[in-house]
């Protein structure tokens, strides 16, 4: 018996749709701008250990709260640390927090959503009611409460943000899985006797992924703001390790003497979050067949 997916591969049914999506994406200038913004921050963060910048923790008591200059492009902080270096290293923490927490949300949320949407019945009822309960607690309040009970650290902040972001992925995947489970090709897969795990892996999972990709991009943006918020409140990255939120928290105390301490972390958060939002909007438009 011929495997239906092999038939689909042979006929190359997927490819025109995929190239159309990419074509639309590459014509979407704001999405490309977003992708470029994200790429700049990712490259800077990745290259942090090899860039010719001072140690982010090195203090210089002779250069405390210096405004931007040739020696310190973005100025120095309250104990003479180079702000540019802390910005780049802090970017690693922020980007990692965004990506890791969304990965946690996807790893928990997508399988639960598929189970709920594919099996329906009591599995769906239990998963959906729990999702609704978690959705009733605002994202940041849930993350603050979890971070408070787990203890303040960057790892716990990522876990807290990840758990807080999970219900959105469960709900989205469930809706997609319900629609896909009703498609003819899934019925055919059943009819030719494929086992449920194979159907879930080969037909349901790949087809729920496009909207999840869009949601993931937008959620990375919210997660970066959430990490910055938690670190700003003192519940995320702990000093002396740099993070944009923690830098803003310190900067708040020196707002009149050294306002540049507050400028850069805020601008960086704004730009990277804007980048992810533009990218997510662009991906959504590219994947939406109604936008043709």
């Amino acid at each position: 018996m011929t495997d239906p997916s092999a038939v689909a591969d042979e006929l190359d049914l997927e490819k025109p749709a995929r190239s159309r999506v990419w074509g639309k994406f590459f014509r979407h200038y704001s999405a490309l701008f977003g992708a470029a913004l994200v790429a700049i921050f990712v490259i800077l963060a990745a290259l942090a250990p090899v860039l010719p910048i001072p140690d982010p923790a090195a203090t210089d008591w002779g250069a405390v709260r210096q405004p931007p200059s040739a020696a310190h492009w973005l100025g120095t902080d309250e104990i003479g640390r180079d702000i540019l270096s802390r910005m780049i290293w802090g970017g690693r923490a922020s980007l990692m927090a965004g990506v890791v927490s969304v990965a946690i949300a996807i790893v928990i949320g997508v399988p639960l959503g598929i189970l709920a949407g594919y099996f329906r019945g009591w599995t769906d009822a239990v998963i959906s009611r729990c999702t609704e309960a978690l959705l009733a607690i605002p994202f940041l309040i849930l993350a603050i409460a979890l971070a408070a009970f787990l203890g303040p650290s960057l790892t716990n902040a990522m876990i807290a943000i990840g758990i807080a972001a999970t219900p959105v992925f469960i709900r989205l995947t469930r809706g997609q899985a319900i629609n896909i489970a009703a498609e003819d090709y899934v019925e055919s897969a059943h009819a030719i006797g494929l086992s449920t795990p194979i159907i879930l892996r080969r037909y349901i999972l790949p087809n729920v992924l496009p909207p999840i990709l869009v949601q993931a991009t937008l959620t990375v943006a919210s997660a970066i703001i959430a990490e910055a918020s938690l670190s700003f409140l003192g519940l995320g990255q702990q000093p002396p390790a740099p993070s944009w939120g923690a830098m803003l928290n310190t900067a708040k105390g020196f707002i009149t003497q050294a306002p540049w301490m507050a400028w850069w972390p805020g601008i960086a958060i704004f730009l990277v979050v804007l980048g992810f939002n533009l990218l997510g909007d662009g991906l959504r438009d590219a994947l939406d067949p109604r936008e043709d």
Partner: protein
Amino acid sequence: MLRFLGHRLIVSLPTVFLITIFVFVLQKLLPGDPVLAMAGDDRDPETLARLRDLYHLNEPIWKQYWLWLVDAAQGDLGRSIRTGIPVSDMIAQKLPVTIQLAIMSMIFAAVIGIPAGIISAVKKGTATDYVANVVALSGLSIPNFWLGIMLILLVSVKWQLLPASGYVPFFDDPIQSLRTMVMPAFVLGTALAASLMRHTRSAMLGVLRQDYVRTARAKGLSEREVILRHGFRNALTPVVTLLALLFGELIAGAVLTEQIFTIPGFGKMIVDAVFNRDYAVVQAVVLVTALGFILMNLLADTAYFLLNPRLRAG
């Protein structure tokens, strides 16, 4: 109408039940002995025994939950470990402050976001639409605590126009109260205005494509009348629902805004509680916020029902 409300209430019950379980379990996440964490530096065996007794920690876990639930249902959310004040009294005292902030932000968001959304939808694809979208997306991407710090720097420190912090109850001195709240409301309202603009735009675009809008134009109504009477009135329903969903964002935003502007509200309470390790307060804030969210959804459903004649007739 009553049947509709009754049905919605019954449907929300399992959610409320699960929220109470979740909030109860939060306390169990504390590493180590919860009593040691609650007592802080006070390691006196008598205090520990009293706390263990107070929180029924010697009972089996299901009984602990049940006793906590019965107390919570009667409005007894425990006492603050730091001040000894009942948590429900603290909430009653802090909530009006946050409600004033929330109302002012909502007004700001609605005044900016809804007209911007309508204009952007009507002028779809033009430079106006593009600019409105960029501004809205920037509003969503700007961290509100940073916006707050920058405004304090500019408006309070440099121009000395408005106070940088503090709170004056509205009925004590309305003018001073508004002066202290204008900046926080602007900060909190920015992201809401952006959300509202994007949703109004998308709802309006959906409505403007409908046949009845074409009919309204065809029968010679002015463009203004077509957009406002036939377009916006129908786009309003999803926008009203969104207002309820924004409640969550509003409370979460209030946490940071109140922290920046040192406003003694509900949002600042949770942060203070976290740092004081006042876990009963943290639990209560989560519970009250979640119940508030469910209530707002119920109100939104009711508004949806009242605004939509087809549902009302059915």
